[in-house]
């Protein structure tokens, strides 16, 4: 561990709405880093900016401001022409494998496409590697001459993963890779990712809204709310000892599939505010059960609670950040 593959500093992304002059504030000052061989999990509700962050880190969408360092190099303002060769080392797997693959290309061509673009290898070597990759993701080589329509969702997601690992990237961003898959298929994909993680030593960013999956795969977890990382913490600490009130309520809303699991419900009132008009101060104060008047005006700073454990909440200082268990 130790070598930082990707670092984002104060990343901001705002999408303009028509010509109205207002913006959707999707990402508001996010700092994060991913190390070699590490899986950073990212959870949050829909609209919290998870996918936007994933895309922005690869420069698939342009950041409004902030800095992205990939492998020590500032890629924030590189031109498209200069970013493209870097994509060899950073790959992405998307949520919906049906729309991520060209329906008219053969599976074999789809898998070898990244190698043909990025690597200077002979055609026969490319073919060999394609077969190896297919076997690696446990896909029958019979499929290589078929089109995506002949494959099931789980098999297509394996194709997407094979494409992502084809060029031995240093960073792989997985944007909800298992949410559209059935439970048993999902288990197979997660197992494959776990093997690849050990094998490739790449850094992974695993975006998901499912806490169960995140718990299973991640080393560290970043909890997102309205485009802010409210808590960043090693996995075990988040599940045993969440600090931010939002993390606490998110965890309490998670339903483990064990009827004997003890649920302590901290149901939040209301819904996530609109990212067009961000609430002033702490973005969570509108739903926070332990908010104090100060939360409405002061934006909390990120504080280090213990090594590797960061949270932004004004009530960390007086210890009022823990939601009392009896109140609803």
């Amino acid at each position, binding site marked *: 561990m130790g070598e930082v593959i990707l670092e984002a500093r104060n990343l901001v992304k705002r999408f303009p709405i028509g010509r109205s002059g207002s913006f959707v504030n999707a990402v508001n000052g996010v700092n994060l880093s991913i190390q070699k061989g590490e899986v950073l999990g990212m959870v949050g*509700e*829909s609209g919290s900016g998870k996918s936007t962050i994933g895309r922005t880190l690869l420069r698939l969408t342009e950041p409004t401001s902030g800095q992205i360092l990939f492998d020590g190099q500032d890629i924030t303002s590189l031109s498209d022409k200069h970013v493209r060769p870097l994509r060899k080392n950073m790959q992405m797997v998307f949520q919906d494998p049906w729309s991520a693959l060209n329906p008219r290309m053969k599976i074999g061509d789809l898998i070898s496409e990244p190698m043909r673009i990025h690597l200077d290898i002979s055609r026969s070597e490319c073919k060999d590697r394609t077969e190896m990759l297919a076997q690696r993701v446990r896909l029958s080589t019979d499929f290589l001459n078929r089109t995506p329509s002949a494959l*099931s969702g*789980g098999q297509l997601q394996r194709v997407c993963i094979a494409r992502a690992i084809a060029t031995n990237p240093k960073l792989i961003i997985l944007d909800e890779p298992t949410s559209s898959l*059935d*439970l*048993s*298929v*999902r*288990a*197979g994909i*997660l*197992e494959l990712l*776990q*093997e690849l993680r050990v094998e490739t030593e790449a850094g992974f960013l695993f975006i998901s*809204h*499912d*806490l*169960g*999956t995140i*718990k*299973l*795969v991640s080393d560290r977890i970043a909890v997102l709310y309205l485009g802010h990382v409210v808590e960043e913490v090693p996995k075990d600490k988040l599940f045993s000892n969440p600090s931010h009130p939002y993390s606490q*309520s*998110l965890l*309490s*809303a*998670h*339903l*483990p*599939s*064990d*009827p*004997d*699991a003890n*649920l302590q*419900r901290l*149901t*939040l009132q209301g*819904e*996530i505010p609109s990212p067009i008009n961000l609430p002033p101060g702490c973005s969570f104060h509108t739903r926070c059960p332990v908010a104090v008047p100060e939360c409405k005006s002061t934006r909390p700073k990120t504080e280090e609670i213990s090594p590797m454990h960061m949270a932004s909440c004004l009530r960390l200082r007086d210890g009022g950040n823990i939601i009392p268990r009896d109140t609803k």
Partner: protein
Amino acid sequence: MSLLSVSDLQTHFIFHDIDNQLREACALNKVNLTLNRGEVLGIVGETGAGKSLTAQSICGLLRPPARIVGGSVNFDGRELLSLPSEELNAIRGADIAMVVQNPRSSLDPLTRIGEQLVRIHQTHSGGPIDKSKQKAMEMMQAVGIPDPEGRFTAWPHELSGGMAQRVLIAMALMNDPKLLIADEPTTGLDVTVQAQILDLLKNLVARFDMASMIITHDLGIVAHYCDEVAVMFAGEIIEQGPVREVFLSPAHPYTQQLLAATPERLHLGSKNQLGGQPPDLFNLPTGCLSQDRCELATSACRGEPPIVQITAGHTARCHFAKPRRKSTKLRRNLKNG
């Protein structure tokens, strides 16, 4: 006498293919289930297992080429499958209410929320408009919509996903249904909103003494919000029983596989083979439908599997299911996970 009892329900898709040959997909194969008042039944299964089709068949909402080819659906003492459509219309929306997956596309975008609520009450219960309006307000209050008077005149597009789902539940409750069918009621909603909606559903079932059927693929929802669970595979209910019992000592190998695939119990790095294709509905294997995906399968599985009583109220459709055996082992596994 149970409120709903479905026996041997068979729904097939029957159509002519491009070569004008008659094709028949056996989507539901002898579904049996019963549901009592005050009970919440969870139906789980993978995509294409026939969960939603079961609900649609019960309500008579099938469209061609889907057709019910056998079985019976007995609701509150009446046989639904042989009812003429006018009588069925009087039951649907009144005694049986349904909440569907996508709340936004289920609301009429050109009619205000309040009017849609009043309309469904007028259609079934009649009476003065003012009374319907009052009822609409009450129901909006019951499902936790803040400021019901203000929302009464809101348009569907002004609502968030969670609010729209609440409106749909309020609409389902307008005529005091005896059975509430919720087809993936929280898919697409955030976990914090999901918790609110499910808490609400559970409270309402208790408060109005209804029966409810929740169709989902999320075992977490079943574990915490249902009393009974039915596991479907290839159009068959392969196991049914009280939630705690099925989760702690699943009798059918498919249920065991399904439970083992949940993130809580999954051990990465172990070499258990999971997944696989469901059987071809056009060409079902004889005997047990899950034999191709089952580790235990032997030649005995070519024969029709018996429905085995594991304990009272817990049944499984498998040759290898034995009354009460695997429970101790599975309890231990759970603790390790």
